[in-house]
């Protein structure tokens, strides 16, 4: 069969298939306008400025971003801009049950703590083993192709936790993608204000969790969409943070998974007004920063930004590079991460 014959058949088939699709044009435009208005209100609320006076002004002049307000513009399935919120579990009331968990775990069970950078998987895994290769004698079979950022550094740590969880129910939050995402932001990254779930798409092996912050007008603004993957196989495999999916603030250099050295050139693009970028380098085994660069002025529409950050003390198999901006209504309002190898 010649390409011309295939092309003729293809043209006829796609035309027939496409013509059979009859979208509701009027409903589409109304939905688009409503979602655009809601998104602009969120942007105004975020840019309205910090402080009590600004907060009051926002409350008076900007319609509150109640979840119901957002839901009224939803058609045809979940929309990216629709905001439904779930408060983060309070640090003082960690989840105590999980799949297969008969109740509260031992005293070592805890939710990701905003004040603890490294919730240690039980019992003591080593931090120097490869994430993709189990050591001889390991009973577990956890494999992972992405750089493991948080909360596990290696397959050995995952195996240790799985054994402990099966025995005592310790740290059940590893099985909850949303709680893991919040633990990553409030605990590991120390972004205390990024404390709620804006939306999530949790699949069998990977999850996308949008985390956000409360705004002065009473609404919620998304800060980042965190990508998680199961570390290992099966429902009993814990969630691991591997990156973020970015839009308004991107981190494109260094490339994901690149091997890097200090000083590190970092860059990406940003859409925003009067932004001040802070770049940090972290690793799971260190409670503090390995390096930081601040404060890079930026703004515009998809405008490139660049910074250089020096770091030291890198020993983990993967490092987290995080760029954040804020200062309008909160210290951190948007962030993006990438994973690199030292």
């Amino acid at each position, binding site marked *: 069969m010649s390409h011309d014959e*295939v092309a003729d058949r293809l043209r006829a088939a796609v035309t027939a298939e496409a013509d059979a699709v009859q979208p509701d044009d009027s409903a589409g435009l109304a939905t688009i306008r409503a979602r655009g208005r809601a*998104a602009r209100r969120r942007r105004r609320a975020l840019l309205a400025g910090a402080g009590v006076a600004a907060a009051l002004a926002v409350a008076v002049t900007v319609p509150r971003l109640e979840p119901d307000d957002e839901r009224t513009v939803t058609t045809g399935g979940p929309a990216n801009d629709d905001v439904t919120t779930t408060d983060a579990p309070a640090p003082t009331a960690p989840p105590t049950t999980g799949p297969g968990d008969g109740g509260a775990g031992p005293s070592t069970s805890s939710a990701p703590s905003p004040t603890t950078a490294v919730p240690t998987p039980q019992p003591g895994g080593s931090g120097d083993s490869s994430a993709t290769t189990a050591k001889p004698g390991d009973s577990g079979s956890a494999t992972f192709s992405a750089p493991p950022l948080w909360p596990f550094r290696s397959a050995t740590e995952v195996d240790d936790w799985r054994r402990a969880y099966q025995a005592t129910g310790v740290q059940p939050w590893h099985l909850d993608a949303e709680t893991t995402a919040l633990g990553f932001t409030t605990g590991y990254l120390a972004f205390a204000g990024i404390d709620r779930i804006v939306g999530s798409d949790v699949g069998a092996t990977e999850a996308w969790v949008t985390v956000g912050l409360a705004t002065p007008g009473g609404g919620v603004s998304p800060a980042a969409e965190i990508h998680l993957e199961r570390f290992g196989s099966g429902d009993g495999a814990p969630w691991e943070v591997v990156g973020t999916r970015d839009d308004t603030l991107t981190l494109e250099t260094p490339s994901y998974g690149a091997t890097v050295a200090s000083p590190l050139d970092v860059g990406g693009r940003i859409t925003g007004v009067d932004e001040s970028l802070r770049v940090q380098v972290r690793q799971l085994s260190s409670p503090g920063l390995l390096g930081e660069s601040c404060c890079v002025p930026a703004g515009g529409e998809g405008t490139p930004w660049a910074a250089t950050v020096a770091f030291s003390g890198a020993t983990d198999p993967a490092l987290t590079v995080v760029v954040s901006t804020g200062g309008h209504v909160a210290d951190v309002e948007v962030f993006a991460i990438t994973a690199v190898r030292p």
Partner: protein
Amino acid sequence: MMVAMSVPLRGDEGTERADGDPLAALHREHYRSLVRLATLVLGDVGLAEQIVQDAFVKLQLRWGGLRRLDRASAYLRSAVLNGARSQLRHHKVRDRNLARRTVAPAMGTPESTLLDHDAHDRVIAALRALPVRQREALALRYYLDLSEAQIAAAMGVTPGSVKVHVHRGLEALARTLGEEDR
């Protein structure tokens, strides 16, 4: 201020149109064809509508950043393809939808029409089995009738890559349909 812009429909770049509501004009000109394009790529009308709506919402938010409104149609096509690709990557809708038709066949058709439907179904099934880039290139070429340069802009690749994707896609379709015809 009245905004003058080009709103090319199915590839006829250069059509001038003055309209006081550019969003409505763009929507009128492109919404339906973009939903159909996304449906061809995804095989799911509901998801296609959602992705196209997302693209229009993003366009609204970037309205001030679009220095040339005549690029809005190219922006929309690119946003729709990116959205469709993202859906395919993260939700594996392709596999789900290969197994079922998303558009109900017409009822009470004569025999000749039924045969046409069967032939079309086989072509569409073969199209949806192609790698996503080849599928996109073929849908843009043979549904929207875009030029190689326009397809390249929408897909974010070079015109040379477009040629490769179209050629390989047609090769694969010829192989699949040729085997089925035997």
